[in-house]
């Protein structure tokens, strides 16, 4: 891998670069304890992630994690939609961390998959799909990863009861008397 000769950035410069490029897309930016938090809408995720990875000044090589959030009945003005998917990236070159929160509406719970940019996003996206029912467009293999394939519910949604809806008692395919 070739050495990146571009000088290192700090968080302030990173915000400036991002604001120049995505002034209309970024809803909120905040630097807090060595972490840049960005709020965006789900439609802009692919542009921003591609820029973060491919721009030689930013050079966010490492994809860290994806997680989902359900903000049902959440009393806070900064929450714009019911769901959000949170992406964390890290830049070795600049020693910077960025957390992107992409809001997703309840009616259209889908977002573009970033697994074309980061291979490691494949399974975390499947996990979010499994737990929250958020559909990732253009994902290579979008199916449940933790729950059984015929589970039929998204257990980490806030309106899903802790004890489930009877899934743990239903085993139609495994009957000991069958043989």
């Amino acid at each position, binding site marked *: 891998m070739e050495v990146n000769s571009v000088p290192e950035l700090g968080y302030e410069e990173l915000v400036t670069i991002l604001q120049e490029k995505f002034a209309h897309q970024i809803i909120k930016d905040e630097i807090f304890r060595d972490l840049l938090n960005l709020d965006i809408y789900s439609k802009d995720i692919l542009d921003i992630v591609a820029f973060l990875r491919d721009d030689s000044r930013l050079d966010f090589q490492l994809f860290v994690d994806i997680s989902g959030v359900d903000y049902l009945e959440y009393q806070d003005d900064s929450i714009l939609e019911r769901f959000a998917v949170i992406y964390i990236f890290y830049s070795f070159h600049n020693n910077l961390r960025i957390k992107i929160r992409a809001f997703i509406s309840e009616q259209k719970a889908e977002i573009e998959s970033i697994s074309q940019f980061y291979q490691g996003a494949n399974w975390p996206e499947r996990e979010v799909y499994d737990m929250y029912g958020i559909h990732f467009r253009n994902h290579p293999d979008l199916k449940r990863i933790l*729950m059984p394939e015929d589970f039929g519910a998204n257990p980490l949604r806030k309106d899903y009861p802790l004890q*489930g809806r009877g899934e*743990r*008692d239903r085993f139609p*395919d495994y009957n*000991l008397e069958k043989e």
Partner: protein
Amino acid sequence: MGIESRLGSYFTTKLDKIVNWGRKNSLWPMPFGTACCAIEFMSTLCSRFDYARFGAEVIRFSPRQSDLLIVAGRIAIKQMPVLIKIYEQMPEPKWVMSVGACASSGGTFDTYTLVQGIDRFIPVDVYLAGCPPRPEAFIDALLFIQNKISQERIQDKIHGS
């Protein structure tokens, strides 16, 4: 039909005794360990508690070679079909030990993902209380199963009841 009609009842009772003596003193456990109960079972096997004193030290990780299924730990609903498959693969006669609160009742995990007691899906011979149970409880459960075996009759198994 069956051996009891061709031979006298005296002979079959003695045969029961001999076969049961052999079965109860050479139980081969198949550990299905998914949580801390399995760690406790390991210590039960080791020299301080020494399961081998009761003839149950030959751990087989193949269900086809064992006759005592030890379900030690919580069983998720995705795992229950696997456990049922393993139970079905074990040759008769077979016995099942449900170890600890989670396998017996779901324990503290009263959630959407956990089976609330394996006895909803496979027959259980002995339940061990505890979270996890002490090694003494494992020994007590084994003695319970040995006692149960010694009261069985071969003709019950032959007739498939």
